[in-house]
C-alpha cells in the first residue's frame, strides 16, 4: 500500500538516513524507533509528502505521491509533534474544522462523543494542559476510522496511563479493521507491532 523506496534525508548538513526502504500493508502496525535526532519525524514527514527526500521516492498504491497530491492526502491522517489545535478555539470547534478540512461531514454528536471518550474538557484550548491538548488532537482518530493510513508522530507524549491505554486500544482497533498505522516513539509503547524500523 505505502512504499518508501531508497529514501535519503539530509538536514542541516547531516545525512540522517540513506537507502531506507519500507513497505506498509493493510492491517500492519509499524513502529519507527530510534534515539532523539535520528530522523524519525523527518521520515514521517517524507512519507506524508510534507518534506521532499534528497533521494528516493514514496509510492501510494504504486503511484508516486508527488503526482497524487489530494488523492493521497485524503487517504491519510497525520498527527505531528504539535497538537494542531488553535489556542483561541474550543476542542469541539477545532475538531469540527479538522474534520471538514479533510472532507468529512461529521455530526456534532459524534464530535462530542469523541471528545468525551478522551475526557477532553470543553474550554478554550489555551486553558488546557499539555496532556489535555494532546488528547484533543488524538480525539480526531476516533473520527478517522475510514481513513486507511494513520501516521502518528510521538502520539504518547504527555499522556497519562489511562489516556495512553485508550490510545493503544484505538490503534489496535484501527489495525484490526484493516487500516495501517505507522507511529514513531523513542520508547517502547507497549503495543504488539508487526514490525519495528530502527533508525
Amino acid at each position, binding site marked *: 500500500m505505502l512504499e518508501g523506496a531508497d529514501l535519503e534525508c539530509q538536514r542541516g548538513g547531516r545525512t540522517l538516513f540513506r537507502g531506507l526502504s519500507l513497505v506498509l500493508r493493510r492491517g500492519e502496525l509499524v513502529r519507527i524507533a530510534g534515539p532523539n535526532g535520528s530522523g524519525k519525524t523527518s521520515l514521517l514527514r517524507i512519507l506524508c509528502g*510534507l518534506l521532499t527526500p534528497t533521494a528516493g521516492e514514496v509510492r501510494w498504491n504504486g503511484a508516486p505521491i508527488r503526482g497524487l497530491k489530494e488523492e493521497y492526502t485524503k487517504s491519510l491522517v*497525520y498527527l505531528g509533534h504539535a497538537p494542531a489545535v488553535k489556542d483561541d478555539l474550543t476542542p469541539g470547534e477545532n475538531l469540527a474544522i479538522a474534520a471538514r478540512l479533510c472532507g468529512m461531514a461529521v455530526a456534532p454528536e459524534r464530535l462530542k462523543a469523541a471528545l468525551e471518550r478522551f475526557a477532553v474538557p470543553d474550554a478554550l484550548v489555551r486553558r488546557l494542559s499539555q496532556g489535555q491538548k494532546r488528547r484533543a488532537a488524538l480525539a480526531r482518530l476516533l473520527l478517522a476510522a475510514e481513513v486507511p493510513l494513520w501516521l502518528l508522530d510521538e502520539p504518547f507524549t504527555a499522556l497519562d496511563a489511562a489516556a495512553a491505554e485508550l490510545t493503544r486500544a484505538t490503534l489496535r482497533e484501527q489495525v484490526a479493521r484493516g487500516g495501517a498505522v505507522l507511529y514513531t516513539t523513542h520508547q517502547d509503547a507497549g503495543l504488539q507491532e508487526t514490525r519495528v524500523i530502527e533508525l
Partner: protein
Amino acid sequence: MLAAARTILQRDLLLAMRRRGDVATALLFFVIVASLFPLGIGAQPNLLREIAPGVIWVAALLSSLLSLRRLFESDHADGTLEQMLLGAAPLGVVVLAKAVAHWLAAGLPLVAIAPVIALQYDLPAVLYPVLALSLALGTPVLSLIGAIGAALTLGLRGGGVLLALLVLPLYVPVLILGAGAVEMSAAGSGGEAQLLLLAAALVFAAAFAPWAIAAALRISSE
C-alpha cells in the same frame, strides 16, 4: 472544495473576533501614522490637502504590512498549517480563503476609517468615494501580495524587516495607482484609469497570487 474554503474563512474570522486586540492595534497604527505627517511637516491646510491621498495610502500600506505577520505565523507555530497542507482541498483555495479573511479583518476597517483621516487633512468630501474605492480595490491586492512575502519569510529570524524589504517594492505599483486615482480626481480629470488598472491588478493578483503563496508555504514548511 468550497466547503473547505468556507470553513477556513469562518475559522479565521472567528479567530480574529476572539483576538480583537490585534485587529484594533493595526487600525490604531494606521491612524497614528497618518497623524504623524502634519506634526512633522507643518499643518498648513493647502499642503495637507495635497499630500492627503499619498499619506493615507502610505499609512494603509504600512498598516497592512504590520498585520501580515498574523496571517501564517500562528498556524505555523501550532501545527494547523501542516494540516491545511494535508487537507482534502487544494492549497490555493485554502490560501485564498485565508487572504479574504485577512482582508476583511485588516483591510476593510482601513477603508471604513479612511474618510475620518481624510477629514483631518481637510480633503474635500467629494473625493471620499474615490478614496474609499481606491482603498477597497487596493487593500485586497496588498493582502495578496503581502501574503506571498509572509509565506516566504515564515519562521525566519528578523522576519518582520525582511518581509518589508521583500514586499514594499511589489507594493509600489499599487501605491502609485491608488494615490494617483485620488490625485487625478482632485485635479479634475477623473481617476477612472487608475481605478480600472487597480481592478485589473486585483483580478490578476486573485488569479495568480494563491499559487505563489501555496508554493511558498510548501517550501517554508519543509
